[in-house]
């Protein structure tokens, strides 16, 4: 496939690995994005890197950082009559406190998965006797697709489509993680696809305020190795900055159309992250003009009755903060595995525990 195969070329991988050997110095590099976590595991990048260079996973798996309480509330709506729970397929098996979308579907709830959020708007249009609730999970990459769904529902004057919005924004979460000081990283591989929307300028505060080197990075093995190389070069030069090694897709400025679309439908809000708690300004909620599409507002009386989740032995929170390797969780590959997952990090195709189970055991 064009723009994929070239960036997996084995000969070129050898070349850059030699270069990394020359630059190698002790460095802990966080791959922020879950898609990076999975790519690194799948292509065995950790074993290719020179020994003093370590990779650690970060908070960039949207399924994983969705808070348990938010998930429990969304799942509770499945018990309402004539309700369609619409979601990306990634959420299917993520365990809530008492059930999951998969279990609810087996018990007869109307659970459906979209290719695009606009599919859920189509279902609402065709089935006016149903309430379609879409679970809006994801970072800036995904937010424009759900904003478009809300706008389309508004234009069609639908009163049976709502968005359960748990979207999160990346720069604020990274700021909170670094300010917490719990994990000492020397560099960040920043998520290339989030950055197609927000532009690389959104991270300028990271080298400035935290002295951490950054590289906006694509998702093929050569892209990721180039990201590591950029960070090692910055460390050697002693000058942290934001490099962009994914220039074929990412620009310095935000995509203006995306910005306008997001500003029209959403406004910034605080967000609750699994493992990180409430981070001010790290999420969005639906803006006033579109308030009638806000599931959390429309179903507030039902959601208020959902009890807070009971404590869990799962340590995904620490995995997402980069302070625990999956293999060091006492439940890893024992009580917790992909067929009996105890936490989202073992379920999500991009979860660090799932990646470690599949490729690094």
């Amino acid at each position, binding site marked *: *496939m*064009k*723009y*994929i195969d*070239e*960036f997996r*070329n084995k*000969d*070129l991988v*050898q*070349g*850059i690995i*030699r*270069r990394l050997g020359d630059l190698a110095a002790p460095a802990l590099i966080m791959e922020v*994005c*879950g*898609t990076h976590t999975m790519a690194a595991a799948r292509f065995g990048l950790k074993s290719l890197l020179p020994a003093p260079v370590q990779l650690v996973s970060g908070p*960039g*798996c*949207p*399924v994983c950082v969705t808070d348990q309480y938010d998930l429990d509330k969304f799942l509770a709506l499945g018990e309402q009559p004539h309700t369609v729970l619409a979601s*990306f397929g*990634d959420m299917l098996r993520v365990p809530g406190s008492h059930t999951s979308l998969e279990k609810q579907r087996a018990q007869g709830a109307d659970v459906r998965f*979209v*290719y*695009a*959020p*606009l*599919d859920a708007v189509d279902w609402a249009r065709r089935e006016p006797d149903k309430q379609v609730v879409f679970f809006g*999970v*994801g*970072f800036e*990459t*995904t937010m*424009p*697709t759900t904003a*478009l769904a809300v706008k389309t529902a508004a234009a069609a004057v639908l009163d049976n489509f709502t968005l359960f919005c748990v979207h999160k924004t990346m720069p604020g979460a990274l700021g909170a993680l670094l300010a917490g000081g719990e994990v000492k990283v020397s560099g960040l591989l920043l*998520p290339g*696809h*989030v950055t*197609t*929307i927000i532009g690389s300028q959104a991270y300028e505060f990271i080298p400035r305020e935290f002295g951490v080197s950054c590289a906006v990075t694509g*998702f093929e093995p*050569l892209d990721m190795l*180039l990201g590591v190389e950029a960070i090692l070069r910055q460390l050697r030069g002693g000058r942290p900055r934001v490099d962009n*090694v994914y*220039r*074929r*897709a*990412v620009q310095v400025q935000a*995509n203006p*159309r*995306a910005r306008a*679309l997001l500003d029209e439908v959403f406004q910034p809000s605080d967000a609750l992250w699994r493992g990180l708690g409430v981070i001010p300004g790290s999420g969005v909620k639906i803006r006033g003009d579109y308030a009638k599409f806000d599931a959390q507002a429309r179903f507030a009386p039902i959601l208020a009755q959902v009890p807070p989740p009971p404590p869990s032995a799962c340590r995904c929170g620490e995995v997402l903060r980069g302070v625990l390797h999956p293999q060091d969780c006492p439940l890893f590959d024992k009580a917790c595995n992909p067929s009996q997952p105890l936490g989202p990090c073992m379920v*999500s195709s*991009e979860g660090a525990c799932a990646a470690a189970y599949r490729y690094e055991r």
Partner: protein
Amino acid sequence: MCLAIPMKIIQIDGVQAVAEVDGVSRQVRLDLLPGVGLGDYVLIHAGLAIAKVDAVYAEETLSLLRSLADEVY
């Protein structure tokens, strides 16, 4: 979840388009990328084109990688 696949635009009708990869074609939306044309490669995420793949920068990155691979040690 932030996966986005490079696909080639093969049909355009306003903001609606059809994109194709490996013989599979998909309905996609071009709302974020007003300038794209037939034959362009775009990154598709959940039915929306989020970025145009810039052929010049792609080639620049590959030639940098080739030069690293060609260096004699």
